[in-house]
C-alpha cells in the first residue's frame, strides 16, 4: 500500500514538474514514468538501509539510462526527460531546510544540511555522468556489426 502511494505520488510530482517547466505536452507521461522509476529505486534502497547519497547516485543512474533511451526513441533533447526525471531526487527541499536553519540561527544543523546538499547534488551528477560514459562506450564500440 505504501509502495502504491509512493508510485502514484512520484508520478504526479514528476509530471507536474513537467508542466511547471513547460515540457512538451505529449512527453509528460514519459517524464512522469522516469521520475517514478528513479524515486522507487531510491525509496527501496533507503528502506533497505542504504545511506541516502549512494541511493541517490544509483537512482540517478537509472534515470539517466531511461532518459537516454527515451531521447533516442522520441527524438527529443535529453534535458526534457532529464529535468523532470531527476526532480524527485534533487536536494531542493534539503537546500531550503538548510537556508531556513541559517535564518533561524541554528548554524550547526544548517551547515550539516548544506554539506548534505553538496553530496546529494554531486551524487546525482556522478550518476548522470556514469550513464554518459556508458553511452559513449556503446557509440565507440558497437556490439552489433556495422552494416
Amino acid at each position, binding site marked *: 500500500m505504501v509502495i502504491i*502511494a*509512493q508510485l502514484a*505520488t*512520484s508520478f*504526479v*510530482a514528476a509530471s*507536474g*514538474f*513537467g*508542466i*511547471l*517547466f*513547460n*515540457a*512538451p*505536452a505529449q512527453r509528460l507521461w514519459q517524464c512522469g514514468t522516469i521520475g517514478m522509476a528513479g*524515486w522507487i529505486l531510491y*525509496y527501496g534502497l533507503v528502506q533497505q538501509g542504504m545511506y541516502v547519497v549512494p541511493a541517490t547516485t544509483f537512482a540517478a543512474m537509472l534515470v539517466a539510462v531511461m532518459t537516454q533511451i527515451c531521447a533516442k526513441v522520441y527524438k*527529443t*533533447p535529453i*534535458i*526534457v526527460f532529464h*529535468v523532470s526525471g*531527476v*526532480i*524527485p531526487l*534533487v*536536494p*531542493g*527541499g534539503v*537546500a*531550503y*531546510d*538548510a*537556508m*531556513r*536553519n*541559517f*535564518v*533561524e540561527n541554528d548554524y550547526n544543523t544548517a551547515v550539516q544540511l548544506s554539506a548534505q*546538499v*553538496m553530496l546529494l*547534488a*554531486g551524487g*546525482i*551528477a*556522478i550518476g*548522470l*555522468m556514469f550513464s554518459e560514459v556508458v553511452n559513449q562506450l556503446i557509440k565507440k564500440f558497437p556490439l552489433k556489426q556495422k552494416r
Partner: protein
Amino acid sequence: MEKAAAAEKVCMLAGKMMLESGAETHRVEDTMNRIAAAAGLENAQSYATPTGINFSIGAAELSNFMRITKRSMDLHKIAEVNTISRKIVANEITISEAHSMLNRVDRKWPTFPPWMQIVAAGFVSGSFTIMFGGAWADFIPAMLAGGAGYAGMLGFDRFFELRFLAEFFGGFLIGLFAVIFVTIGFGLNLDQMITGAVMPLVPGMHITNAIRDLLAGHLVAGVSKGVEAMLTAFAIGAGVAVVVGFV
C-alpha cells in the same frame, strides 16, 4: 560575407533562446557551433555563461556579445530550438528560414497557461508531502499552500522586477497558509506540509546543473548557477522563517 552575418544572427538568437529557457551552457555552445559549421563557418568560437554569450565566427573577426537577463525553465522552447538546429545541420532548411522559424518560436506563449501551472504546483506540493513520509491528511492542506505560494510568486514576478523577492514572497505565503491550516486543525504536521509545499519553488535542478557544469569544466557557469540557486533557497527559507519563526 552577408551569408556569414545571417548565420551569426541565427546562432546568437538560438543561443539566447536556449539560455533564457534554462539549457546547460555546454549544450548552448554545442548548438551554436553546429549551426555555424552547417553554415560554412569553420572556425567559429562560442562562449556561453548563464548571464551572457560571446560568439565570433573566427579568430580575427568581430565578436558578438549578448546579455541574458531573464532566465526561466522552458523545456518546450529548448526542444523546438533543438529541432530547428537539427534541420539546419541536415540542410533541410536555409539560414533565413531558420531565422524566421526561431523568431516565431521565441514569440510563442508558453504551452501551459498560468492557472494550469498553479494547479500542477499544488499537486506537486501534495505529492511531495506524501513522498517525504507525510500523512494523507496533509495532502490537501499542502496542495493549497503550495498552489498559493506558487501563484504568489508568479503574481509578484509579474508586477515587480525584483529577483529573489518573488521567491521570498512565495515562501512567506506558504508559511502563512501552513501556520493557519495547522492552527485551525486542517493539517497535522507543519514541517512536512511546508517541505512539500516549497518544492515547486526550490532550485533543486539549478543545484544539480551547477555541479554538472563544474564537473564538466564550465567553472564560471557552474559557480554562477550555484550562487543563484543558493540565493533562491535563501530567499524561500527566509520567507518561511519570517512566518514560522515569529508565531
